[in-house]
């Protein structure tokens, strides 16, 4: 205590408990700050603690649960903790990836909110020393009969496209769901994948006492400053408050040159450490880098480049202006570093140095305005075990619970028209999917496939981002398991072996026991699925408070899986390849649960959320994925399509469409008529009866099922391989040259549809819904 008292005290107004509370802190949190400092904090200091100890930065409600996730595995090079996780892709290549949410800003201003979300996840990957190779996005909106929701979708997609396209990074996959629970809380999650040399992953370190600390990139403005309510306090005049923009404008051009400059510096190994300015801006970057190295740091905010006048030290430390990075280098290398920034016309300034006292010291033109232990900001935030209640597991839904008179053909048309199932071409056509020329499989298949050409390799990665919110809404635990299973299964369908996952956990308020229970159950389920499937979690993101007074969102755990393929040119596609091939059903097609609970069919025809989500036998799922990887490696599969939303019949139709989609290169409008499309195939199959009825057989969403097609000469080998993997398999029919989809159930023809017509419905539905003004 006496030692602390002997030190100089920072200048500036003292923050008392009410000011801390206005910053969203609790009285107890304020007391711990006082204890850490041995004195009352200044307003600048309390601002810094409030952001670093916020839910967003400190994970105070989620940490106890996240700790239970499996994070280790053979392939893991970097688990959770750094800016992104990394897995070993062989040949000295690290695959670096992570998913992040930008939900709230996207509701206020969809274009800019989504754009800056993409900018943020890109910086997380770049900071690791990796060159980003691909983006994916997971989106949730209310239904499209509302103009507001169409406006949100249009803006969000435009923002993702605007940022990713300008950066020159292809957006190659993702998913979208529409449900009324997202009306006032749309979700925008973005995932990025990049590669770095495995032995040169960059960390957020501030090693080397005396080393210079460099600020580079965009100038600082009053963007995104937290704690607006604080302005009641005398220090901050109301005028300044009005100047704080509620939304930030993304600047992908600056980010692009920033990326090129940083990657050039890393390639020449001129950095000691690097960190982006994420949430909590300068405060976060300085305290985390210093703390990670067990050091301190001294910076002078007067040196920070600004785009407006009159910013206070408080504002500079808390600003969340985008497109900025912090870099620590050595005195010997600094001129070379600065030359590179100059080449790219970037503002770069030495704003401070690494110190040995463990303190983050903030000066304003030489006058000390804050001095706090860096470790206390970065690592000593509160950690809560919030009370929670877990809802009872619902009973499975039987066919008899949901009788349906509508003919199967009409059900199929309705499902294909449902924007949740319809083609997402209207969306992904706006994304540059081919820049850098690594994209082997674009959006539209089971998983995106990206060639690692830039690392001089013939290998590729497959990536998928999934999470069915209706399943999670019925049973958060199983919903999370199903998300892990689907993401990994989609990856395995291409022939890639899943190596790890990242996740984005979007939930309501953690302060409400029921929501906290959903979160706890989801994390538990996710951990269990990861253990059985052998895929560790390398990182992720939690987004709480996605609720308005009336409604919380459906609990939405989203899982991004990454897998490796040895050869980029050997990936398996989802569409049927050739007439005459045999159609096989592989996996859990004989279970007693038909997967009606939470299904698109029941949502559309019974308008209710009842029952349990599909049963999931994780052991069988693991065997199925192993089988898929092995079958692809032996070249036995001509196509593989996961049965998910809409069940078997929709999967079968989509396998026909995908063949046509691949050849569809000419039509100007996404909603153009599908007449005379080249490559359109059909299928003729027979499936056994289901105890829950014909509709359940066709549209139930039983998990762990994959529709495989294979050349006739591979039949014996494929069946034998399935037996070896202890995975059920049955030949159910064949691919036909006639674009006709025929399904018999137990000898009776229940579907006999023109594929062209189905395709027209499916391919045009989303564009049509968006034009519905």
């Amino acid at each position, binding site marked *: 205590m006496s030692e602390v008292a002997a030190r100089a005290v920072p200048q500036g107004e003292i923050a008392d408990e009410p000011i801390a509370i206005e910053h969203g802190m609790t009285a107890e949190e304020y007391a711990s700050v006082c204890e850490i400092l041995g004195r009352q904090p200044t307003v600048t200091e309390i601002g810094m603690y409030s952001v670093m100890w916020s839910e967003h930065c400190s994970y105070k409600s989620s940490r106890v649960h996240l700790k239970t996730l499996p994070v280790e595995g053979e392939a893991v090079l970097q688990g959770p903790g750094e800016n992104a996780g990394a897995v070993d892709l062989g040949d000295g290549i690290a695959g670096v990836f992570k998913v992040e949410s930008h939900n709230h800003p996207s509701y206020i201003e969809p274009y800019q909110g989504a754009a800056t979300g993409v900018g943020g996840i890109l910086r997380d990957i770049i900071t690791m020393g990796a060159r980003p190779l691909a983006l994916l996005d997971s989106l949730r909106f209310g239904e499209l009969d509302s103009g507001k929701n169409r406006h949100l979708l249009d803006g969000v997609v435009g923002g993702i496209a605007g940022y990713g396209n300008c950066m020159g990074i292809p957006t190659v996959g993702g998913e979208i769901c529409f449900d009324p629970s997202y009306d006032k809380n749309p979700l925008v999650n973005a995932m990025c994948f990049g590669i770095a040399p495995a032995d040169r992953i960059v960390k957020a370190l501030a090693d080397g006492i005396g080393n210079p600390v460099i600020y580079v990139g*965009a100038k600082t*403005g009053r*963007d995104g400053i937290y704690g607006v309510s604080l302005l009641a306090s005398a220090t901050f005049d109301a005028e300044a408050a009005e100047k704080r923009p509620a*939304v930030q404008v993304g600047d992908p*051009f*600056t980010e692009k040159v920033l990326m090129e400059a940083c990657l050039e510096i890393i390639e020449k190994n001129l950095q000691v450490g690097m960190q982006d300015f994420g949430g909590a801006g300068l405060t976060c970057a300085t305290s985390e880098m210093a703390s990670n190295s067990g050091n301190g740091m001294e910076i002078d905010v007067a040196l920070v480049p600004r785009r407006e006048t009159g910013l206070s030290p408080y504002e500079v430390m808390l600003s969340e202006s985008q497109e900025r990075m912090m870099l620590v280098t050595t005195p010997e290398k600094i001129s070379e570093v600065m030359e590179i920034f100059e080449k790219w*016309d970037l503002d770069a300034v030495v704003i401070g140095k690494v110190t040995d006292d463990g303190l983050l010291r903030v000066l304003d033109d030489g006058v000390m305005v804050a001095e706090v232990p860096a470790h206390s900001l970065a690592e000593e935030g509160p950690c809560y075990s919030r009370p929670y209640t877990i809802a009872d597991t619902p009973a499975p839904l039987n066919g008899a619970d949901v009788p349906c008179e509508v003919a199967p053909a009409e059900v199929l048309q309705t499902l294909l028209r449902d924007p949740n199932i319809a083609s997402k071409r209207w969306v992904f056509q706006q994304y540059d999917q081919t820049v850098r020329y690594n994209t082997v499989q674009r959006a539209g298949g089971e998983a995106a496939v990206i060639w690692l050409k830039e690392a001089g390799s013939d290998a590729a990665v497959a990536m998928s981002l999934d999470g069915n919110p209706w399943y999670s809404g019925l049973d958060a635990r199983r919903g999370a398991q199903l998300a892990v299973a689907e993401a990994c299964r989609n990856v395995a369908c291409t022939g890639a072996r899943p190596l790890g996952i990242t996740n984005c956990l979007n939930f309501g308020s953690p302060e409400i026991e029921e929501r906290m229970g959903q979160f706890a159950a989801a994390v538990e389920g996710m951990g269990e699925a990861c253990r059985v499937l052998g895929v560790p979690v390398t990182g992720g993101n939690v987004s709480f408070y996605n609720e308005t007074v009336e409604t919380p969102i459906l609990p939405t755990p989203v899982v991004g899986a990454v897998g490796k393929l040895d050869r980029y040119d050997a990936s398996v596609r989802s569409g049927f390849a050739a007439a005459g091939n045999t159609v096989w059903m592989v996996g859990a097609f004989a279970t007693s649960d038909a997967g009606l609970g939470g299904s698109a069919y029941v949502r559309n025809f019974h308008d209710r959320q009842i029952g349990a989500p599909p049963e999931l036998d994780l052991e069988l799922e693991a065997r199925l994925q192993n089988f898929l990887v092995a079958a692809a490696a032996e070249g036995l599969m001509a196509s593989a399509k996961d049965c998910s939303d809409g069940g078997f019949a929709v999967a079968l139709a989509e396998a026909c469409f995908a063949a046509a989609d691949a050849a569809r290169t000419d039509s100007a409008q996404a909603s153009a008529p599908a007449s005379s499309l080249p490559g359109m195939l059909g299928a003729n199959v027979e499936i056994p009866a289901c105890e829950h009825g014909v509709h359940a057989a066709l549209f139930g969403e039983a998990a762990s099922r994959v529709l495989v097609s294979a050349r006739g000469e591979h039949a014996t080998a494929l069946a034998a391989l399935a037996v070896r993997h202890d995975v059920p398999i049955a030949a159910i029919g064949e691919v036909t040259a006639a674009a006709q989809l025929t399904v018999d159930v137990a000898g009776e023809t229940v579907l006999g549809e023109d594929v062209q017509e189905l395709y027209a419905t499916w391919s045009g539905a989303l564009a049509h819904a968006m034009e519905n003004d």
Partner: protein
Amino acid sequence: MRGQVVVRLKQEVLDPQGVTIAKALDNLGYEGVGSLRQGKVFDVELATSDPAVARTALESMAKDLLANPVIEDYEIHLLEDGSGNGEEGNG
């Protein structure tokens, strides 16, 4: 009559376009450029000839569609009177 809605980013909002263009002008040797910001102008032909009606219509178009109040301000100008100057909308 003809009217005009001018939409600009709020002063405190970053204008990446403006920054880049200003830099380019500097590179081209234009030295006295202190700052440059880029906005949009909408020239609207209206059926009415009543300035008050026209102004109200433009005002509400600006609010509903042409400007994004979260990041932008707008100005309304009526052109039929020949003066070309106008009054500020919400500032």
